[in-house]
């Protein structure tokens, strides 16, 4: 895979394919993070589009002190905040109950009643197979906010908890709690899908 730095160089001289590659690489994650701030998918897409315009116009100013990815998400979050403020609404910190993710899996003593079994059918030679990739990304797409934004930034894009905390203006401890809840739901979704018999 061509790295971001090479794509940026190509972008600076107006290479359309480089732009297409960057969009393909980041569009889904950007839309999810934008969705953390704004109410609708359509508005989130507007935020993403404005972000790309700002990035293209600001290319000369990007000095490579942070990674391109970190810069990109900073621009995105700034745009999203501006638009969310315009939408003049509270950003609900939806801590929707995730108790159902593990439901009645424990007895009164806190031990498994129905212990997890390995997802071995989802691994080929130590690597997740296509079904696993589809299930996991489907599960992330179903997460509510703020879980979707945090899981996307941490587990999909690989930002650090510190970077995410700064980006979303949360404490690192809060990021870790949200990440934990999000991962719990993603794992539960994969397990349920496997047991649900859509084999």
């Amino acid at each position, binding site marked *: 895979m061509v790295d971001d730095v090479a794509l940026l160089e190509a972008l600076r001289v107006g290479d359309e394919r480089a732009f297409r590659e960057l969009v393909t690489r980041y*569009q889904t994650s950007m839309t999810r993070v934008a969705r953390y701030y704004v109410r609708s998918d359509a508005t989130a897409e507007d935020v993403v589009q404005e972000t790309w315009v700002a990035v*293209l116009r600001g290319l000369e100013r990007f000095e490579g002190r942070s990674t391109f990815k970190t810069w990109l998400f900073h621009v995105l979050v700034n745009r999203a905040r501006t638009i969310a403020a315009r939408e003049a609404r509270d950003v609900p910190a939806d801590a929707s109950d995730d108790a159902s993710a593990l439901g009645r899996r*424990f007895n009164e003593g806190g031990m*498994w009643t129905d212990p997890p079994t390995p997802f071995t059918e989802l691994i080929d030679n130590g690597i*997740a197979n296509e079904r696993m990739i589809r299930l*996991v990304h489907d599960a992330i797409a179903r997460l509510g906010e703020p879980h979707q934004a945090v899981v996307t930034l941490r587990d999909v894009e690989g930002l650090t908890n510190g970077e995410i905390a700064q980006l979303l203006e949360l404490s690192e401890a809060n990021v870790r709690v949200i990440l*934990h809840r999000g*991962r*719990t739901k993603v*794992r539960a979704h994969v397990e349920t899908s496997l047991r649900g018999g859509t084999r």
Partner: protein
Amino acid sequence: MKLRSRPLVCREAVEFMSNYLEGALSRRDRRRLEYHLRHCDGCTNYLEQLRLVIATSGTASPDDLNADVVDGLVEVFRRVRDESPQ
């Protein structure tokens, strides 16, 4: 009598696992979890499932990308490029 950490039950162990993978547990809690894992196949499987899910999250899956959206952005790209000759 010396005060010792109470062993974890499974319900508590799963609450520690994400932070365990983040390297964010205190030494004491890490030891409690690792002790529990040595004796519990269910929780060991759970941890492996989480590892697999996290590793898989980082594997690109661009197939849900809407081609119209990409094409629309490429249009935007052309406009911005042409408004400022390099």
